[in-house]
């Protein structure tokens, strides 16, 4: 369960989150909003990438800032640009990098990485330079590198921004099949099929919090 208690955040003089209070227990929750609405900043507070200026964040009762290591073991994070998330030269090495703390044996790490990539349809790319993969393959690799650790919560920040329609669908299907609680920050409304709850942010505040139908209708009206 993710809890935000009166969370506020400022970048200099600019307020990006203002008094956000939410308790997210549903398996699929989306944060929707226009550019600059605060959804990415709110998502980043979940694993301590952003320490809120005020208020509290708890993930299963733990504080992501004070207890960052423990929270990050439970929370996987997928960014919009996989090129920034991939830290090793080849696909196999990047997935293996995620396992460095949990699997000490290198050969076992490599085997697990190869098996995970195969599960994501990237079995032929284990040895390939990661930066040469297509955009869709890179985003799947980024997802595989996070899910290989089997976190309890997956936070995705605009994960389909750089994907074409086919890859976007493939990514959405992959998300739909996960056992993890998913918190998705997006302005791509096509991704919300099957979501339990949609929180709409505007100017750093929660302006709607409902099932996808009414929340999306509110967001559309807000943008029109």
């Amino acid at each position, binding site marked *: 369960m993710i809890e935000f208690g009166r969370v506020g955040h400022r970048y200099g003089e600019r307020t990006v989150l203002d008094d956000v209070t939410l308790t997210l227990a549903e398996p699929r929750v989306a944060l929707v909003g226009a550019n600059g609405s605060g959804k990415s900043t709110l998502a980043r507070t979940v694993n301590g990438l952003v320490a809120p200026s005020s208020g509290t964040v708890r993930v299963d009762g733990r504080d992501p800032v004070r207890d960052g290591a423990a929270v990050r073991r439970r929370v996987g994070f997928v960014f919009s640009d996989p090129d920034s998330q991939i*830290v090793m*030269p080849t696909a196999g090495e990047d997935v293996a990098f995620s396992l460095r703390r949990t699997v000490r044996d290198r050969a076992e790490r490599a085997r697990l990485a190869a098996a995970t990539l195969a599960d994501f349809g990237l079995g032929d790319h284990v040895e390939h330079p990661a930066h040469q993969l297509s955009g869709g393959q890179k985003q799947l690799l980024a997802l595989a590198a996070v899910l290989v650790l089997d976190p309890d919560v997956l936070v995705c920040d605009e994960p389909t921004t750089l994907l074409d329609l086919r890859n976007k669908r493939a990514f959405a299907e992959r998300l739909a099949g996960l056992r993890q609680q998913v918190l998705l920050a997006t302005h791509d409304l096509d991704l919300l099929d099957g979501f339990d709850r949609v929180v709409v942010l505007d100017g750093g505040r929660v302006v709607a919090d409902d099932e996808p139908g009414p929340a999306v209708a509110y967001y559309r009206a807000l943008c029109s």
Partner: protein
Amino acid sequence: MTPLGLYEPGTSPLHRAPPGASLLAVVALAAGSVLTDDPRVLGGLCALVAAGWVVARIPWRRVWPVLRMLVALAVLLGAVQWWLIGPERTLVVVLRLVSALGAATLFTLTTRVDDLVGAVERGLGPLRRFGVDPAQLGLLVGLTMQSIGTLSGIAGQVRAAAKARGADRSPTAFAVPFLVRTLRHADALGEALAARGWGDEDDDR
């Protein structure tokens, strides 16, 4: 694609060699090339490196960009050195450069970065008592290798964008966006490392 080496899968003796030993061999070769001024010895080192490429069975599609880069560098550097220090010294400098770059590239083509990182971590393990963190240095090696591809990609995109705007001859049109995107990439990479728990090991200890 960058001509500089990134791992090329294979089963040759060089691929199977322990990464620590391979790294030491490259360092020894580079050091040896600096210690001698004899063009015959340096020519021999170049021949040795070339033989390594043959033994490693590196495919031509990977050899050609490296060869092109080495020839271009040799011609450019050779012309400047010839003008500055004369033909005999130029031959020494060029052979030295070719042997060292050829060996380093061969090393990266035949060694998985993950294995190299492991070798660095193991090799530096004894220095832990002096405050050296082998894991951090190992990651530094991995990130450096990864950055070759990423920065090469950014440079290609920036060049294409400058060309599209008719500014392909402007150094500023390349340098400014390249610097901005590189710094932005560095920021995002740091954030990604934090998200993937890098540095949390300290909390675990």
